[in-house]
């Protein structure tokens, strides 16, 4: 189909551009470096070095991959507008929505490559250090990828109308909110007026709840993650990124480029 070729072209081009960015490699390198430094940290603990190894390793990969998701996403649309390469795209028979979707696919693919490289290195390292290969960690990487897709979609959204600095601040703020949104359940009983209740609930459901992707404890402690949990996470991701991309398309459709 024609539209597939066009989407593929944009996605591939986005990927090529993303992997040119030195920051991309730097962040991957840091992610791997910190994951491996977990070996040193584990020496300081008493008992169960494997737990510390996995905790530090998975946390570093998580942290740096979030940074990759944020910083790769915010540059992409902004750069096209800055450098006016966007004129070349908009003058072609490709809808603005296809452009945004193509960009997202390219970013998703870039992230996949980054995450898989980090995962492979980390698995290898884990195997050498502890001699065990845990399939639970695969589930962690799957859910981490879902989380990254949401963050990427949000950073793309901001990138379609805002400068990189503001986009990065907003995206990181939403990430932090997403990680702590679960605390809403702790204080919602203190909301008294109907307006407060409504506003708070509204925000709670609109903002992304990233706690569902936090399976590091379950994976390291091997307490198991149910299929319901995984299924719910994947569906949530699919639905949420669709919503965010639709919003990005709506905004981008109205933009003019002087």
């Amino acid at each position, binding site marked *: 189909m024609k539209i597939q*070729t066009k989407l593929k*072209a944009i996605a591939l081009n986005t990927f090529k551009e993303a992997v*040119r960015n030195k920051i991309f490699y730097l962040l991957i390198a840091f992610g791997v470096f910190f994951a491996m430094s977990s070996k040193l940290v584990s020496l300081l603990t008493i008992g169960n070095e494997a737990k510390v190894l996995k905790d530090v390793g998975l946390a570093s990969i998580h942290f740096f991959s979030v940074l990759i998701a944020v910083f790769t996403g915010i540059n992409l649309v902004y750069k096209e507008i800055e450098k006016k390469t966007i*004129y*070349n795209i908009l*003058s072609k*028979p490709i809808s603005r929505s296809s452009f945004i979707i193509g960009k997202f696919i390219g970013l998703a693919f870039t992230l996949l490559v980054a995450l898989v490289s980090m995962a492979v290195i980390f698995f290898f390292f884990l195997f050498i250090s502890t001699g065990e290969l845990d399939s639970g960690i695969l589930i962690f990487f799957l859910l981490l990828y879902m989380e990254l897709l949401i963050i990427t979609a949000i950073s793309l959204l901001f990138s379609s109308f805002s400068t990189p600095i503001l986009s990065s601040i907003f995206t990181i703020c939403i990430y932090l909110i997403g990680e702590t949104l679960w605390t809403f359940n702790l204080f919602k009983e203190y909301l008294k007026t109907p307006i407060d209740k409504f506003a708070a609930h509204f925000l709670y459901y609109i903002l992304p709840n990233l706690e569902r992707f936090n399976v590091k404890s379950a994976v390291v402690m091997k307490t198991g993650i149910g299929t319901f949990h995984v299924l719910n996470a994947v569906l949530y991701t699919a639905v949420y990124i669709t919503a965010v991309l639709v919003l990005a398309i709506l905004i981008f459709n109205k933009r003019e480029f*002087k």
Partner: protein
Amino acid sequence: MKALEIKNLKKSFQSNFLIKQFHILKNINLSVEKGDIYGFLGPNGAGKTTTIKCILGIIFPDAGEINLLGKPSNAIESKSKLGFLPEHPYFYDYLTPVELLTFTGQLFAIPKDRLKERTLQLIELVGMKGKEHIKLKKFSKGMIQRIGLAQSLIHDPELLILDEPFSGLDPIGRKELRDIILSLKDNGKTIFFSSHILQDMELIVDKVGIILEGETRKEGKLSELISRSVRNYEIVFTGMEEQAMKENNLDCIPRDKNFILRAETNEETNRLIGLVNRGNGKILSVTPAKMTLEDIFLKEISR
């Protein structure tokens, strides 16, 4: 069916809520016949690029109608027959010409084999053979412009829109570009380009549209515009003293170290020649001159 038709196009910008709206396009009307070369002429800031951006859907007009090859310009498929070269072409500088043309072609969903063929053809056409695998960031402006032209032709468009294509080219480049445009016309293509350099336009256009301060001032076939103009004679002389020139009320234009007089009739020409001779001036040349496009243009501006 006209290749491009614009009716009553209006566009204004407002940079923030406090400043009043700034009307950049007040009333643009133009029509481009199929197979013509159309020159879109206007000084800097008249709204040429804005008009072109409205055609391409990069900017959304406030009012008016734009039809590309019979269909409204905001339909996606209209763009599949349209080729565009922006004023300052920017491409992904980490790509090579081949990669860029392949990418562009994919946006038109051109099948792979045909795309490969076209890519090679176009690289040769714009004279970039041998350099097709060098990254664009190493190219000079002229070379990028050539590649820009190639990417605007990758899908064999019926209508080509070029925004200031001659700017920044050296005389050889200009000639080459003129040749390419003429050969495209021979192949049945319609070319619409904007410029403020009149000499290039004069040599190749069929029809001209003059735009000033967001309005179309004059539009018409070049042959008609110029033939309507008055033939005059250009007298180039030197050696006369300023005092003498003033005494004789000679309304002359200095050019380099000489002076020019314009006369509209034979009789006037003779009279002026006599005046110069009596004032001890030396006649260097007497040339019948047509009114140039520049003259028409300057006349419009002064109104």
